[in-house]
C-alpha cells in the first residue's frame, strides 16, 4: 500500500527538522504510538504501535531504523514490527522530505505499508483506509504542534 501526503507548516525548516528529531514530542503526534525509546541517537528507535478497527486491535512492538539522512532536507527510514498474539506483521518504508515555500515548510511523506498475516483478513480496503486516517491525523498533529508554538 502506498501513501503520499504533504502538509504545509507555518514554521521555518530548521524548526520542523529539529522537531522531527525530538523523539518524545514527535512520537506524541503519531496516533496509537506509545513507549518510544531511542536505542541509538539518530539511527535506531523503538516504539509500540497500537491500532484499532472496531473490535480488532493490534499491537506492534516496532523498531525504526533511519537509513538515510540529508540535513534539513530528507529522511529515509524503515520500521517493522510483529503482533504475535494475532499473528501479523507490519513493514513500513518512510520517506520524509522538507522543502521551503516562502515562510512555510512543506513536510512531505511517502509511505509504503505492508501488512502480513491474519490481520490482512480484514481486507485491504479497510486497512488502507485506517492507515490513511493515521497518516492524516499525524500530519495534522505535527502541523498543530509546530504552529501552536508560535
Amino acid at each position, binding site marked *: 500500500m502506498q501513501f503520499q501526503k504533504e502538509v504545509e507548516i507555518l514554521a521555518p525548516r530548521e524548526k520542523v527538522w529539529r522537531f522531527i528529531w525530538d523523539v518524545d514530542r514527535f512520537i506524541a503526534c503519531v496516533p496509537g504510538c506509545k513507549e518510544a525509546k531511542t536505542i541509538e541517537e539518530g539511527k535506531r528507535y523503538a516504539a509500540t504501535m497500537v491500532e484499532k*478497527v472496531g*473490535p480488532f486491535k493490534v499491537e506492534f512492538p516496532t523498531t525504526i531504523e533511519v537509513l538515510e539522512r540529508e540535513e534539513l532536507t530528507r529522511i529515509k527510514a524503515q520500521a517493522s514490527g510483529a503482533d504475535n498474539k494475532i499473528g501479523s506483521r507490519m513493514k513500513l518504508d518512510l520517506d520524509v522530505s522538507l522543502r521551503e515555500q516562502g515562510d512555510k515548510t512543506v513536510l512531505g511523506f511517502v509511505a509504503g505499508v505492508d501488512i502480513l498475516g*491474519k*490481520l490482512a483478513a480484514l481486507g485491504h*480496503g*479497510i486497512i488502507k483506509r485506517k492507515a490513511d486516517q493515521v497518516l492524516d491525523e499525524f500530519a495534522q498533529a505535527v502541523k498543530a504542534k509546530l504552529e501552536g508554538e508560535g
Partner: protein
Amino acid sequence: MLRRFRLEEPESVAEVSELLGRFGESAKIYAGGTELLLAMKEGLVQYERLINVKKLTGLSGVKLAGAAVEVGALSTHHQLEDSPVLKEKLPALVKLEQNVANVRVRQAGTLGGNLCFAEPHADPGTLLIALGAKMVAEKASSKREIAAEDFLVDAYETALEPDEVLTKIHVPVPAASGRSAYLKFGYLERPSVGVAVAFNLNGAVSGVRIAVGCAGPAPRRVPEAEALLEGKSRDEALGRIAEAGAIAGKASQAISDLHGSQEYKEHIVGVLLKRAFQSALS
C-alpha cells in the same frame, strides 16, 4: 483454535448491560456467533468473557406494534424469512433475509448480531436504512431509539455505547402505496455492492429513500439521489435514475479491494439502483 473464555449467562437485558459495563472490552455479547466465533477462532479477537444472550426471552420474533413492525434483535435470519407478518408488511426484507449468506448462517445468525458486528459486507443495514428503521438500544436504566442510518457508524463500529444492548428493531409499516426493493451483487462469498430503495407511489414518487452498502465501510443513505427523484412522475423518475445512480455511486465511499475496484463498485451501484427502482415499481 478457540481460546478459553468464561461464558456468562445473564437472564435479563439489565444484567447484560451491567456485565458489559463491568467487564468492558474484555467481554462481548454472543448471540448467533456466526461472525464472532469465526473471528475468535482466527485469533483476530480475544475475549475473556462471552455474554450469552440466547436464553433471554422476549427478544426474538416479529410482531406488529402500532405503526411499526417490531423485530426482536435475537430473531434469526431464518425466522425472518418465514415470518407471516414480514411477508405481509415488508416483503423486501423477507427477500433479503432469504438470501443472506448461506443456510447455516441463516439458521444460527441473528439480525441483531448482524447489525452489531457491522461487517461492511452485510445486507440488512442497507435496506433497514431505506425503510427508515430505528434501533432500540437499552441499558439497565435507560432506553433510546437510534435511526438505522446513525446506528452503523463505520466498518465494525456502531453507535451503541459500551454497555448498551440492541434489543429490537422497529420498522415503520409502509403505506399501502409503499414500494421497496433491495438488490445485491457480488462474485465472492459476500456481496460487493448492495442497494436499497423505498418510496410511495401515488401518481408521483414520494418519500424516496435510497441507501447503498457493502461497497464502502458502512451503509449510507444518499439524500442527494433521493432529492432527484422526489415528487417526480414515474417516467420522470426513471429518466433521472441514471443520474441518481451516479450520485449514489460516489456516495457509497467505495473502497478498492478483492470485491472490485472503486470505479467498478460505483458503476454497479448505478446499475443496481436502476434495477431496484424498476423492480419496486413493477
